């Protein structure tokens, strides 16, 4: 790369919010036609750096140069105009407009001052075809799956003259085929000389697609490395700044557990569309890992056995009595708690403090007349924050300002405060960094050791395999098998999860 001028260069960049230093004197560069990964734990300053490049945050000090010229973006609009486009994990498109309208929005082709809808649709069809996407451009975006919406967001980003494309966790809602598809597109954009910033917590994917890696920690630069020269273990170490926390393998008292009766057992549980005829038993002290591709009914299963969705068919027994679980209030009263995969929309109340978020469900269960005194609330929250290692320890902060891993812990604390018997965790480690991930995994193991029945859902098979005592394998809305995790390895699980006609990668 020597001799080639960087396409984008950030030098000595700092971003401060009042007394908080989010980014501290960081230098960062991207060359044309490279895929560059930005790695770091949550709170390392990744999002801040991205926002500084895409014009959402202004630099407090330092300079940004694009194509050798110093630039200053005061809005995302200005960054767009200069050829820097970003696709975020939480899809920022408009569900009420059509696919074509979303792709063209803000730069629709016009004739005589009026939008030329036909040309717009043709252009969208072309862009989608380039991406290998079979989607009706006239269909309403909100009707498509998250994965398709994500690809449409990328289609939008590349439909203009893009120089720098930022992909922030683009693969977290994609299944393996779709990831392969995305990578094909990324490689093609690379050919066209686009610089791509690829942010993902899937190390696997980072090593597959990226040329170089920049590591951040606590808002400061750790270093820039060629992917081929950086061992994984070293990368993780640089991100964490310490030896990677080990997942403490917990003792599995398999025989003892086998004798235990199921606390919750579901038979023939069906919701539409979602899960069909599912049978599952949750015993105390046992973790059931749920493995399946996107759309295999992972979330539907979780929602069906926690009273979130109303059952079309089937029965759920709790301690041997057939119970109706919906609405979730009733399930919670029976000790069945569910934590959603959508942290932002179905979990955390970002504007409320950490204290409020933790004590919310408990207060709701007690009712209006048995108010938890503020001092007691703080005490409760502090003890949970302490037990789960929620950082920072300032409990009055709005929960939305915490990093993803800590937000997840706040959600966990809220449910644990209710002293549940069953805990169903849907993608608790999605979009959080390696360190926090391991912490959550350890936490799950501890909870099970303390007698909770846990259902652990994750898109990452390795994780499911490590955490689960039993693995429920889902395919196309059905539980195809439930196996003990001992004796299963990654490849075997992959083959089980993948469709039979799909070669196990």
């Amino acid at each position, binding site marked *: 790369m020597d001799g080639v001028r960087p396409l984008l260069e950030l030098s000595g960049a700092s971003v401060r919010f009042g007394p908080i230093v989010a980014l501290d004197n960081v230098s960062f560069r991207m060359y044309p036609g490279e895929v560059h990964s930005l790695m770091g734990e949550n709170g390392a300053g990744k999002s801040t750096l991205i926002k500084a490049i895409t014009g959402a945050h202004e630099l407090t000090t330092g300079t940004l140069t694009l194509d050798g010229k110093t630039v200053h973006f005061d809005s995302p*609009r200005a960054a767009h105009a200069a050829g820097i486009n970003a696709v975020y994990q939480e899809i*920022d498109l408009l*569900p009420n407009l059509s696919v074509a309208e979303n792709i063209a929005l*803000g730069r629709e082709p016009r004739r005589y001052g009026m*939008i030329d809808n036909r040309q717009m649709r043709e252009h969208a069809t072309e862009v989608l075809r380039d991406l290998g996407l079979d989607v009706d451009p006239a269909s309403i975006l909100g009707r498509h*799956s998250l994965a398709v919406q994500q690809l449409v967001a990328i289609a939008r980003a590349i439909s203009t003259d893009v120089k720098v494309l930022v992909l922030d966790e683009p693969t977290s809602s994609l299944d393996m085929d779709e990831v392969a598809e995305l990578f094909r597109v990324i490689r093609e954009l690379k050919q066209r000389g686009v610089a791509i910033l690829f942010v993902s917590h899937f190390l696997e994917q980072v090593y597959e697609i990226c040329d170089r890696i920049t590591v951040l920690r606590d808002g400061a630069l750790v270093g820039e490395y060629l992917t081929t020269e950086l061992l994984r273990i070293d990368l993780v170490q640089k991100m964490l700044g310490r030896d990677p926390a080990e997942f403490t393998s917990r003792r599995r008292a398999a025989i003892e557990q086998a004798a235990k009766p199921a606390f919750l057992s579901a038979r023939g549980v069906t919701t539409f569309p979602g899960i069909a005829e599912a049978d599952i038993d949750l015993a105390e002290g046992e973790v059931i890992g749920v493995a399946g591709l996107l759309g295999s009914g992972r979330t539907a299963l979780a929602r069906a056995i926690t009273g979130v969705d109303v059952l079309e068919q089937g029965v759920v027994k709790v301690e041997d009595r057939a119970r109706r679980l919906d609405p979730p209030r009733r399930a919670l009263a029976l000790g069945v708690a569910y934590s959603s995969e959508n942290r932002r929309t179905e979990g955390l109340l970002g504007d409320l403090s950490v204290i409020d978020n933790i004590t919310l469900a408990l207060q709701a269960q007690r009712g209006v007349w048995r108010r938890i005194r503020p001092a007691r609330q703080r005490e409760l929250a502090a003890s949970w924050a302490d037990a789960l290692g929620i950082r920072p320890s300032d409990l009055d902060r709005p929960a939305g300002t915490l990093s993803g891993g800590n937000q997840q812990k706040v959600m966990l604390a809220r449910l644990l405060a209710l002293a549940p018997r069953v805990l169903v965790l849907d993608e608790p480690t999605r979009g959080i960094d390696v360190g926090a991930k391991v912490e959550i995994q350890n936490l799950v193991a501890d909870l099970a050791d303390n007698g909770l029945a846990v259902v652990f859902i994750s898109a990452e098979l390795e994780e499911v395999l490590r955490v689960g005592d039993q693995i429920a394998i889902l395919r196309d809305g059905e539980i195809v098998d439930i196996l003990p995790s001992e004796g299963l390895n990654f490849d075997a699980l992959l083959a089980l999860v993948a469709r039979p006609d799909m070669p196990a990668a």
Partner: protein
Amino acid sequence: MTTVQTTTADRVASVTSFLRTFTSRYASVLPTLAAVGVLLLLLMGAQSRFGNFVSPGNMSALLLDNAYLMILAVGMTFVIVTAGIDLSVGSVMAFTGILGASMLSTGVPVYIAVPIMLGGGATIGLLLGVLVQYFNVQPFIATLAGLFLARGLAYVVSLSSIRVEEPSLLWLQATRFRLGDWYITPTGIIAIVVVATGALVMHFTRFGRTVYAIGGSEQSARLMGLNVARTKVMVYVISGFCGRLAGLVLTAYSGAGYPRNGIGTELDVIAVVVIGGTLLTGGRGYVLGSMVGVFVFGTIKSVISFMGAEQSWTHIIVGALLLVFIVVQRAIVARSDRPR
């Protein structure tokens, strides 16, 4: 035998695939189509009951009697599609009317009075838009303040009705262009032009797209680099201007300015916009749908006067219709928003 079965199966398959394509593309048109259905039922029912209801004269009158409502509905559609609301339009309409009538009666020439009537409304709209956008005031509160302000100003101008003698203003209503038994007045033409312009702007300009985008997700619209702030202010300016224009039309229609005009009209307007298929939560709706809503409202009103019943029945029926429509819309939206 087998061939028959295959073709039937084929036909079923092609129909279901057509339906799937249709709903994936046009689910948001369904409420408006429902409104068209209701309008046709009303007209057919009235025709069979009275025999002479769907006559050219009566249909022409339907447009003219509701011209002001139609103009207001266009402005309101813009506001509601951005998930806002404008409660000030009824008062703005009354203020414009009484201000114009009073100016004309004191001898202000018409070529000065009319621009003042029209220009002022945009100013109130601008004020409300700035309040909503830059001071983060809830549209409900900001425009409620606008409602009181404009109504108060109307009373300041005059407490009683002022007749308009100005011939050029009365010409707007008195002239009838005829085609057989059909006729239209300049006020009717103004209403149609406003509807057509509104529909064009909404569907064929970037501004219109931005209006829909804001209703879908304001945050996303901003991140996509759309000019959210300007657009949000503009929709209130448009609605304010429509309020003013409706005031002018109503003054011509009634031949007088009256400070108590249009009390509760803002709610009628919201009702017809919702009946026409626009969602109060924003992001979906059509200007032409609102026009259908106005016709539904106007037809109910005229059916009731044909029956010689008390006019308060209009609101009872509109209220019931509104309830049904909101439920229907919820059902359609809930179904169509569910990702596959």
